[in-house]
């Protein structure tokens, strides 16, 4: 940490951890419901649990990205954040809108559009909140001494993510059009602009942690985000195969989405190579573990498991089954959750002055959560493939198949418990750091540069 205003990031990270914990509780509720135990049905029916689980995911990741931006942009631009006070206003309003939405979902107040359930009036508040955030970040960047590629790519990702929220707010009478433009938000986020945010954070961390020359790292960053957009934009077509639009998307979506793993492969190779090349290794081993881990697990979850069902011939059978949930979990975890954990692990010691660089608890948090998540992915995967065969190939009735799948959800719950142990360790480590202080500034000057 080099600028006092970077400390505001801490509170965004803390909000992230809180919402993540809640997200997992709702995940368990759904896991139990799938296993045949829906005792909470009257108060938290499955659709409430699902909307809360996925929306909390999006909000805690966004809160993590925002914290990352408040930490990274001042340091890259070499300029204090233009207004710390407004950043706190933005934090609190984000938390309030998030909580209002989540509470509403328990009272049938929502818009049943997968991932974009936030009702319209709250959408406007989200827009205002994000405008404030973008203004703070962009003004800081442009007042700053330098505009690095890392900062530009990250800000571009954030700005496009904000703009892409808008197509999700158009009203349509046709379910087909509704769905068509919903993907402009959901797909172009996770397989487009969020990858710029991820790439920006990754490149910042690699510069700090490996000591490899900025010019080299940023050159590859351009290549990676180039591959992302080249494949990801037209790759949107993989959601248009079977929703009532024409057949052109079977070809376009099939070809371009099959290329999407290249960006994730490039990211993994990039991270591993920079690590190998680096000569001035930073002592923060935990941050390094999450950074390299994120690049690798995102390739598996998004790249490989995405590819597994992206060709139209396969997707015809897997579309809308538990196979999709399998991929959704490991992809979100590897690409976005892990990169947020990486930047938190890097930034916390710098903000608080506590050098928890390589603790046993930190390492356990990494390995246990990852093993748990991979176990969950396998459980979803086995259930998904079984579902596809029984329901879609053997034409068995939906509910008959669901009964047969219950056993896999017991496995899911066990793996999820392991995962939760890992996350709990991470959160304990988080709070053991204590709160950010200005004294940390001086301590850091001795370690860095």
């Amino acid at each position, binding site marked *: 940490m080099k600028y006092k205003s970077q400390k505001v990031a801490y509170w965004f990270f803390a909000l992230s951890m809180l919402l993540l914990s809640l997200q997992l509780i709702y995940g368990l509720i759904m896991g139990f*419901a*799938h296993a*045949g135990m*829906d005792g909470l*049905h009257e108060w938290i*029916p*499955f*659709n*409430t649990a*699902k*909307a809360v689980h996925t929306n909390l995911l999006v909000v805690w990741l966004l809160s993590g990205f925002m914290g990352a931006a408040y930490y990274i942009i001042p340091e890259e631009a070499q300029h204090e954040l233009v207004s710390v006070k407004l950043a706190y206003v933005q934090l609190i309003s984000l938390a309030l809108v998030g909580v209002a939405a989540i509470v509403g*979902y328990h009272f049938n107040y929502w*818009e*049943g*559009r*997968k991932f974009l*359930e936030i009702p319209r009036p709250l959408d406007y508040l989200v827009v205002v909140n994000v405008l404030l955030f973008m203004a703070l970040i962009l003004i800081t960047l442009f007042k700053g001494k330098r505009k690095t*590629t890392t900062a530009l790519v990250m800000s571009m990702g954030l700005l496009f993510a904000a703009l892409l929220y808008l197509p999700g707010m158009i009203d349509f*009478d*046709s*379910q*087909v*059009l509704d*769905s*068509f433009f919903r993907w402009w938000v959901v797909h172009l986020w996770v397989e487009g602009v969020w990858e710029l945010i991820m790439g920006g954070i990754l490149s910042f961390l690699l510069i700090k942690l490996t000591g490899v020359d900025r010019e080299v790292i*940023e*050159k*590859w960053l*351009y*290549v990676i*985000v*180039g591959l992302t*957009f*080249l494949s990801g*934009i*037209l790759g949107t*077509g993989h959601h248009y*195969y*079977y*929703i*009532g*639009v*024409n057949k*052109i*998307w*079977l070809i376009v979506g099939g070809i371009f989405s099959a290329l999407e793993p290249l960006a994730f492969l490039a990211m993994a190779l990039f991270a591993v190579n920079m690590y190998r090349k680096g000569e001035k290794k930073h002592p923060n081993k935990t941050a390094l573990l999450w950074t390299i881990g994120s690049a690798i697990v995102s390739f598996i979850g998004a790249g490989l498991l995405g590819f597994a069902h992206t060709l139209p011939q396969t997707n*015809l*059978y897997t*579309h*809308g089954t*538990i196979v*999709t*949930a399998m991929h959704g979990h490991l992809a979100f975890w590897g690409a976005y959750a892990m990169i947020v954990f990486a930047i938190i692990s890097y930034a916390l010691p710098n903000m608080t002055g506590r050098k928890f660089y390589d603790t046993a608890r930190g390492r356990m948090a990494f390995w246990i959560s990852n093993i748990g998540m991979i176990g969950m992915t396998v459980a979803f995967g086995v259930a998904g493939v079984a579902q596809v065969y029984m329901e*879609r190939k053997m*034409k068995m*009735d*939906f*509910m*008959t198949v669901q*009964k047969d799948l219950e056993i896999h959800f017991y496995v899911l719950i066990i793996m999820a418990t392991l995962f939760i142990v890992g996350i709990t360790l991470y959160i304990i480590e988080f709070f053991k750091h204590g709160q950010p202080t200005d004294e940390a500034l001086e301590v850091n000057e001795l370690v860095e540069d």
Partner: protein
Amino acid sequence: MLSKKQARAFFLGGTVVTFLIFIGLTVYSLGEAQDQSHSENITEAVVRGKKLWESNNCMGCHTIMGEGGYYAPELTKVVERRGDAYIKAALMSEQPWQPRGRKMVAYNMSEAEADDMVAFFKWIGEIDLNGFETVVSPLAKDKSNN
């Protein structure tokens, strides 16, 4: 070796070109000639049905055209599979509908609302889904045991 400038040109060039193609394809696909959804059949009842579909977040449990939750049956061809009366009974039930043990929210809909939902499902059921309809439903109907 690739320079940073070339890398940036690759990024900007690739983005602009694919973005323009994407917009072009979108305009082309949404044109009337390409319509596979019989959009002329979207009556007021269908629109009201869609609003109910959204305001109750049915998609939180069910899939429709393969999108939604994986907890409850796919509803794309539900009219063909079950018929109007069955659907209306499920929607108008005052108790959670649970023919096979797994509970649905008791929506307690009025007859008019249930009719709107059925109109919505009928419109959905006629959309040409590039072959997906043959995988998710009519065949399931042959085998369905109740």
